[in-house]
C-alpha cells in the first residue's frame, strides 16, 4: 500500500517530463510539434484504460482496431416517428382509425385511435429496405444504412430520455458519449477540440448543456459548442477593433511574463501547460474559422448538401436543407481534421420546432424531413467518394420514437420501440430487428439503448466493459451496471 502512494504517477526521467507537460495540458489542443515529440516517446502505445486523473486527450490506442475513427451523430431531438420513416407497418396502415389499448405513459394503458402513416413506402436497393417518401434523397442511400428498428429506452419524458441517449443514464450528472470517446481515444488533431456539438438555430434541446457535459469527468472532456454563425467558439475572436497582430503581442507579453514566473518555480509542469494553452488558444483562432470556411468547397459539393437551397415558404418554422446541410458539411470537415465526435442537433426549442410532433405529425414531417433529407444523403455520398465513409460512423436517431396511436393529428412519445440507423465504418447495411405489427414495441431482436452505446464504442475500437472511470468509489461505465452487448447483427 505504501509504495503506491509514495511514487508519483509518472516516473521522473527526462522523457517523462515532456510527457507530463502535455499530460497536464490535457487540452484537445496540443501543438502538433509537441505531440510529435511524444510519438518518439512510446507514448501513443499507452492503452486506453487510463485512470481518471491521469487521462488526457492525446491520441490513445483503442482496445482493438476499430473500423471507425470518428462519429457524426445526428440527433433528431423530439423523437422522430419510426412508422412514418423507416418502420413500414402494413397492419397499422390497414387498421387506421381503430381503437386499441396501448401503454402511452409508463404503466398507463389507455385506449387510443390508431393513426396510419400518411406516407407511402417503397423498398429500395439491394437490401430492399423500406423507406417512406418523406425522405426522397435518403431513400436512394438505403444500401448504406444499417437500420435497427427494435431499440427501446427507459423514459417517456424528454428530459430523462435525452440524458439517457446521451449519457447512458436517466439521471443527470454522467458524462456524455462524446466525453467517453474523448476520454477513451483522445483526439487526432491537437488544434481542434475532440468533441464538438452543433445546435439547431431554433434553440437547444431540452436539458440544454446537460446533454453534452462531461459529468464527473474533468472539464477537458466536455463538448465545445461550435456555432456556424458568428463567433464559432465562445470568446474566440479578439474584442472588436483588436487585430490579430495585437492579440499575438498580448499572448507574447503574457507568456514572456509567465516565463519569468516559471524560472523561479522549476518543475511545475502545470505552469508550462498553461503557457502552452495560450499558444493553442491563439492557433485555435485560425484553425476553427478555417473549418467553417466553405470557400474551398466546390459548387457541386455545396449542392450535394443543399447548402444553397432556398428557404421554403410552406411553413414559417421550416428552414429547408441549407442550415443543416452546412452543419453536415462542417461535420465532414471536422472529422477530416481528426475530430472524434461531432453531434448535430436537428430540431431545437419545443413542439413543432423539433421532432416532437404532438400537435400534428404530418406538418412536423413536412417541416423537418426536408431539412435533413438532402444533407444526410449528401453527407453519405460525399464521404463515400472521398474514401472517408469506411472510417466514419454516422449515427441517426432521437431520444425515443412515437406512438402508432393518434394524439389529435399528432403522435405522443414512445420509448418502447424505435428506429436508429448507422452507416459507414464497420457497419453492415440492412434491416435489423422488428417492432410489433403496429410499430409500438420492440419485439424481435430488441435492444436497450445501452447496446447501441456498446456498439458505437465497439465500432470505435473500445470495449464498453473495459472503458471505465473510477469516481466516488465505483467503476463507472457508459453502459452502466446492467450487462450490455454489442449488436452483432449491425456489424460488417
Amino acid at each position, binding site marked *: 500500500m505504501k509504495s503506491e502512494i509514495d511514487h508519483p504517477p509518472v516516473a521522473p526521467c527526462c522523457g517523462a517530463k515532456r510527457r507530463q507537460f502535455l499530460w497536464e495540458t490535457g487540452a484537445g489542443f496540443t501543438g502538433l510539434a509537441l505531440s510529435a515529440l511524444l510519438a518518439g516517446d512510446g507514448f501513443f502505445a499507452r492503452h486506453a484504460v487510463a485512470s481518471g486523473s491521469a487521462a488526457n486527450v492525446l491520441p490513445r490506442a483503442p482496445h482493438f482496431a476499430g473500423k471507425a475513427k470518428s462519429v457524426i451523430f445526428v440527433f433528431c431531438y423530439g423523437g422522430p416517428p419510426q412508422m412514418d420513416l423507416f418502420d413500414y407497418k402494413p397492419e397499422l396502415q390497414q387498421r387506421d382509425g381503430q381503437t386499441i389499448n396501448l401503454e402511452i405513459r409508463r404503466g398507463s394503458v389507455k385506449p387510443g385511435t390508431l393513426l396510419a402513416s400518411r406516407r407511402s413506402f417503397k423498398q429500395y436497393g439491394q437490401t430492399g429496405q423500406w423507406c417512406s417518401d418523406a425522405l426522397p434523397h435518403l431513400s436512394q442511400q438505403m444500401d448504406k444504412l444499417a437500420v435497427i428498428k427494435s431499440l427501446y429506452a427507459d423514459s417517456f419524458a424528454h428530459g430523462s430520455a435525452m440524458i439517457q441517449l446521451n449519457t447512458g443514464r436517466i439521471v443527470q450528472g454522467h458524462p456524455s458519449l462524446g466525453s467517453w470517446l474523448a476520454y477513451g481515444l483522445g483526439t487526432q488533431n491537437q488544434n481542434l477540440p475532440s468533441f464538438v456539438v452543433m445546435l439547431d438555430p431554433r*434553440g437547444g434541446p431540452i436539458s*440544454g448543456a446537460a446533454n453534452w457535459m462531461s459529468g464527473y469527468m474533468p472539464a477537458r472532456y466536455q463538448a465545445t459548442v461550435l456555432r456556424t454563425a458568428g463567433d464559432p467558439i465562445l470568446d474566440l475572436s479578439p474584442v472588436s477593433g483588436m487585430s490579430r497582430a495585437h492579440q499575438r503581442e498580448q499572448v507574447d507579453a503574457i507568456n514572456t511574463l509567465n516565463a519569468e514566473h516559471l524560472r523561479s518555480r522549476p518543475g511545475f509542469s502545470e505552469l508550462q501547460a498553461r503557457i502552452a494553452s495560450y499558444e493553442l488558444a491563439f492557433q485555435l483562432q485560425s484553425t476553427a474559422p478555417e473549418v467553417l470556411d466553405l470557400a474551398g468547397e466546390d459548387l457541386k459539393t455545396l449542392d450535394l448538401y443543399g447548402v444553397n437551397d432556398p428557404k421554403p415558404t410552406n411553413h414559417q418554422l421550416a428552414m429547408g436543407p441549407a442550415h443543416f446541410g452546412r452543419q453536415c458539411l462542417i461535420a465532414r470537415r471536422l472529422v477530416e481534421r481528426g475530430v472524434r465526435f461531432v453531434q448535430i442537433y436537428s430540431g431545437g426549442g419545443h413542439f413543432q420546432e423539433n421532432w416532437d410532433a404532438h400537435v400534428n405529425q404530418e406538418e412536423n414531417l413536412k417541416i423537418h424531413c426536408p431539412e435533413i433529407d438532402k444533407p444526410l444523403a449528401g453527407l453519405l455520398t460525399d464521404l463515400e467518394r472521398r474514401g472517408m465513409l469506411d472510417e466514419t460512423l454516422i449515427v441517426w436517431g432521437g431520444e425515443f420514437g412515437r406512438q402508432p396511436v393518434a394524439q389529435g393529428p399528432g403522435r405522443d412519445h414512445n420509448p418502447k420501440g424505435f428506429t436508429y440507423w448507422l452507416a459507414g465504418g464497420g457497419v453492415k447495411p440492412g434491416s435489423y430487428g422488428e417492432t410489433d405489427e403496429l410499430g409500438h414495441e420492440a419485439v424481435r431482436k430488441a435492444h436497450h439503448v445501452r447496446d447501441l452505446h456498446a456498439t458505437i464504442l465497439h465500432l470505435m475500437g473500445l470495449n464498453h466493459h473495459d472503458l471505465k472511470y473510477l469516481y466516488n468509489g*465505483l467503476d463507472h461505465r457508459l453502459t452502466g451496471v446492467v450487462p450490455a452487448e454489442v449488436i452483432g447483427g449491425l456489424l460488417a
Partner: protein
Amino acid sequence: MQFHRSILLLLGLTLRSEASAAEPVMEQGHWAYRPVARPSLPRVRQRHWVTNPIDAFVIARLEASGLSPNRPATKRELIRRAYFDLIGLPPAPEAVAAFEADPSPAAWTRVIDGLLAQPQYGERWGRHWLDVVRYGQTNGYERDAEKPFAWRYRDYVIQALNLDVPYDRFVREQLAGDELPDASMASLVATGYYRVGAWDDEPDDKRLAEYDELDDFISTTGQAFLGSTIGCARCHDHKFDPFTQRDYYALVAIFHNVRPYAVPSFASDSPTLLPLTTPEVATRWQQEVRTRLAALEAEMGSEQDSRKREALRRQLEELRANPPPFPLALAVRDRPTQAPATRLLVRGNPANPGDEVRPGFPASLTSEAPKLVPTSGRRLALAEWIASEANPLTARVIVNRTWRHHFGRGIVPTPNDFGRAGRPPSHPELLDWLASEFVVQGWSLKQLHRLIMQSSAYQMSSIADNVPARSVDEGNVRLWRQQLRRVEAEVIRDAALAVSGQLNLSMGGRGIFPKLSREVLAGQSRPGNGWEESPPTEQSRRSVYLFVKRTLLVPLLESFDFTNTTTPVGERASTTVAPQALMLLNGEFFQQQATAWATRLQREAGESTFAQVERAYRLAFGRSPSDTEQRIALRYLQERSLKGLCLVLLNLNEFVYVD
C-alpha cells in the same frame, strides 16, 4: 458460493441481530473503520522545526526517508496563501506591507485571526461545503425550475461557518434540524440539505423516482459526512467495503418518512416549504387564507354575471399565489403518519421487494441500534450517531477536507471515499491526531484552521528546487514542501473583481445572474428561460452568490472545473484548456475588469506609468515587479494601453496560481 449467499440473505436478519447482541461487529481490517486513537507524538531529531504536533508527524516521516523540510515561505507568500486559503481573495497591498514590516511572532496569529473573523471566510469555506452537498438552485432536467429559497441553505452554511458552529452541531442541524430538541430557525433552514439536489419533475417511473430521491440522501450523506460510498450498496452488497445491501436499506428506512420533494407551493401544507415563524402565526395565516378562499369560492359559485365571476376568479388566483407575510425555507418535512415499512429491493428494483428492514446504521461500523420513536426522530438518531466522537469516520473526514484545502491534497487523497477503493492516508497518525484534537477542541473548524496554519509544515515554501527531494518524492506525498495551487473558478473571478476595485461584498440572498452572451443562452431549449440579468453592481458580487442553474452553468465556472452539481464532490479537477485562455483574453467580464482596474490605477498611482505598473503589481501580486517585469510591462503599456496591460496581468499564471 451462490447457495451460501442465498442462505445468508435468508438468514440475514437473524444472523445480524444475534451478532450485534453479542458484540460489536467491528470491521478491524480497514484503517478507516477502526476507532480514532490519539497517537503519541513521534520522536524526531529536528525538534527546532516542530512548532506544534502536526510538525512532529510530518518531520518524522521526512526523516524516515532522509528528506528535509523546505525553507519557510517568504512573508509575502505566506500572507497571500493565508488570504486565498481562508477568504479566497488577494490581500490589499497595505496588508502585505504591514505584515512584512511586523517582526513580532504574533503577527502571523493576528493575520489568521483577522481573516477568520471576516465574513468572507464563511463564503470561501461555505463554497467548499456546497460542493460536498451537491448544492444547486434548480431541479435540473427538462424544466429545470428554480427551487425557491434554496439560497437560504447556502446562506445558512456561510453563517454557520462564520459563527464557528461546532461541526457536530453543523451535522445535526443539516440532517435533523427539525427534530432537534432545541430546533431553531437556522436549524430548520439547515435541513434544506435534503432539498438542494437534482430532482426530475417528470420521472418515467414514479416509484423508482422515490427511491432515487432516497438514494440521493444516502449517497450524499455517506460521502459528505462519512467519506463513505455506502450509496453503492443499493443493488448489491458493496464491492469493496463492508456494507451490505441490508445496511443500505436500513438507511433507506431512516429517511423513508421524509416527504418526497414536490413543486413547492406557498399556500398549502407543503412538504418542502417551512414557515420561519412561530407555529401559531403560520397556522393563523393558513386558516385566514383558507377561510377567505372558501368565501371567494362560495361567492363565485353563486355569481351569475360572467364578468364578475372573472374578477372573482382573478382574486382567487391572487390569493393562492400570495406569499405569506413571513419568510419561508426550503426544508425537510416528515410524513405526519407512521413511516412506511421499508423493504430491501432485490437488485434495487422497486418491483421486487424483499424482506422488511428496520432502521439502522451500517453494522460494520457500529453495534448501536438507533433509539426510535415510530413517526419521527429517525434522522436525529442518525445525526447523533454520525456527529459522535465514537464514529470512526466523521472527524477524520472533515479534518481531511480542511487539510486538503490548506495543502492542495488531502492526507487521504480521496476525500469522499475513505473506503477500500479510496486511497490510503499518507500520514495516518497525523490524521488520527488531528481528528482527536479536533474533537477535544469542541469540533471547532476555526481552531482547526489555526492549528494547521500555525504549523511549520503549512508555512513551508512551495518552491520545488530541492532536486534530491524532487527525485524521491516528486508528487510531494511526504510533505517536504507546500503545494503550488491553481485557485478555483470562483477565486479567479473574485480576485479579478478585487484588484479592479469593483468587488461588491454584500452578502446573502437569492443570488446573482451575470450577463450571459446570446451564444451561451442559445444552448437552451427556450433561450434565456430561467436566467435573468442582475444590475451591474449586483453582478460584481462574489461568485458564491452566482445563481446555480443546473442546466446552464456560467461558462467561466464550467470551463475552470466547477463542481458537478448533481453528486457530492470532494475534489474538483484542475484542467488547463485553451478555451480558458480565450475567456480570460476576450471574454466581456475580463475586459470590463481590465478597464475598471486601469481607471483605478490612474486614480491611485497618478500619471506616471512606472508608478502605475508598480501599483498594479502590488494589487495583483502583493509585490513590486522585477526590473525585467517592469521593463516588459512598461513597453506593453506604452505600445498599447494601461487597460491592455491590466488584461495581460489578469491572464498571468501568477494570477491563478498561489505559491
